[in-house]
């Protein structure tokens, strides 16, 4: 007991954090698990109904549709959002003019700071058929205005595009930081061996980016499963079928329809998937070894 007394101040210092996490992270997690096994009632006691909520979710065709949407939109963001910034970073690294390099970095980073309401507002207006810049340009070239946000075929690509637009600069700068950190002796050695610039990129630069790639991949992977605000903000009734994702389903079922048992069961699929994916990713990427 004495040893605890000695460290009393330290325990006091961490107490608020401990209380916060217990109350607003672990307790909701446990409570959520409980609710997912209950028939939720606004008034009165909730009764346990076993796996009924999970069965309801799995037999709901809407759930399967939003799952496919999540995988397609998330997969698109993951694939392009992972590789495109690498391309931009390498491309920027080739630029010799420092002022151009700095300016480009500065500009492409900017959208990362904006909320989805702002990005939704900017792009919905840009692509709107009446007065939107993109359609004004199409008209100048003699084309017909396109109703981008109300056509199903554009819906998913638009979500992927805006997600990339927001984060490409941020991710690119992470890679650039890694590129700048590469030891010049590696290049010198390659020069002596008569390597071309392309060989240098292929065999020195890219391998040196692997640790950063691991971080970015894991960040993106966990991010795409829980996308909510982007979709919630940019969806509209005509494209909802195409873009609604798991978290939108949870929100609608739980908060709007008050079917909290089913909503929570649906969200636990995301929690289980996150846990499993993190464990697999850590194993596969041998995340703990370096970085």
């Amino acid at each position, binding site marked *: 007991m004495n040893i605890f007394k000695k460290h009393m101040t330290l325990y006091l210092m961490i107490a608020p954090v401990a209380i916060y996490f217990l109350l607003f992270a672990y307790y909701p997690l446990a409570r959520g698990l409980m609710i997912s096994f209950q028939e939720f009632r606004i008034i009165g006691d909730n009764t346990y109904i076993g796996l009924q909520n999970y069965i309801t979710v799995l037999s709901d065709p809407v759930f399967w549709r939003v799952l496919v949407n999540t995988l397609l939109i998330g997969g698109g963001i993951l694939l392009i959002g992972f590789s495109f910034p690498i391309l931009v970073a390498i491309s920027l690294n080739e630029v010799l003019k420092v002022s151009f390099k700095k300016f480009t970095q500065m500009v492409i980073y900017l959208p990362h700071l904006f909320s989805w309401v702002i990005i939704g507002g900017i792009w919905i207006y840009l692509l709107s058929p009446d007065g939107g810049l993109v359609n004004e340009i199409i008209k100048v070239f003699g084309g017909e205005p396109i109703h981008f946000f109300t056509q199903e075929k554009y819906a998913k690509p638009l979500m992927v595009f805006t997600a990339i637009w927001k984060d490409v600069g941020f991710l690119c700068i992470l890679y650039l930081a890694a590129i700048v950190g590469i030891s010049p002796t590696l290049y010198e050695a390659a020069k002596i061996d008569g390597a071309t610039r392309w060989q240098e990129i292929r065999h020195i630069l890219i391998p040196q980016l692997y640790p950063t790639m691991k971080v970015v991949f894991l960040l993106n992977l966990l991010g795409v499963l829980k996308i909510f605000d982007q979709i919630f903000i940019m969806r509209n009734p005509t494209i909802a079928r195409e873009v609604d994702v798991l978290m939108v389903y949870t929100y609608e079922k739980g908060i709007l329809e008050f079917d909290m048992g089913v909503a929570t069961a649906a969200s636990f699929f*995301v929690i289980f998937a996150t846990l499993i994916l993190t464990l697999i990713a850590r194993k596969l990427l041998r995340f703990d070894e370096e970085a």
Partner: protein
Amino acid sequence: MQKWKQWSKKYKTFYVLNIVFLILLVATMIVPLLNTLTVSLSSNIASMQSGIKIIPTEISFEGYVTIWQKMNLWLPFYNNVLVTVIGTFFHVLLSALAGYVLIQKGLPGKRLMMSLILLTMMIPGEAIMIPLYIVNKDLGLLNTLASLVIHGLVSGFSVLLLRNFFMNISYELAESARMDGANDFKILFNIYLPLAKPGLATVTLFEFVSRWNQFTPALLYINDSTKYTLQIALRSMILSNDATSSSDFITPNVRMAGIMIAILPLIVIYPFAQKYFVKGIMLGSTKE
């Protein structure tokens, strides 16, 4: 330019194409922003006329006045400032306290606390929105700005990041202060915090931006329109394409003015943000 002459023809072609590619990329970022700025500065009537608008030709603050005064954007803006400033302050304070505790040697239960904090980073926040809503309801926090301050009051990421910063500070310095009779609070505030300024700046900026942009918690917890925060208020003002009744028609200049007002504080802190964000995310993602 001397280098240019030494380059092979192939590399010259590549270099030019590369620059073109980057210019196009910059254009996709900068043109939408210029368009937003230009439209926000046009009059109600001009903003509804067609045409390509990327350079302001007239300056009218009609849109700004409408959204700020007539549509009362000042109130959600004020709420947002309140929640962001108070929330960020406590977030940084609590993260620093926890980060400090987690570098102490020989503290019983330290490993357990560390694991519990790290584990929270694996809980996807959005996925527990229903139980979080219920917890807030049970605590009587629904419809209060306090619920938004409390949401994300501390995060595993920030604790870890500050802990990593503190670890690089010499432990002997703290030990000698302890010999002189300084307690843990004194050591943290007088020795560690001043030496970890870049770390504090990183966490502060991260938190400021994410709180300024916070959307989902406000959507869940706030119903009362006098307590709306900026993102929630703006969503109904600038994205209300379903407002078909002509009396509520909001002209593009008003919408774009709303966007400009919301991003202004972010632009102001931007020069600092860029510098610290990269360092921060790399440090935060590093394990022990």
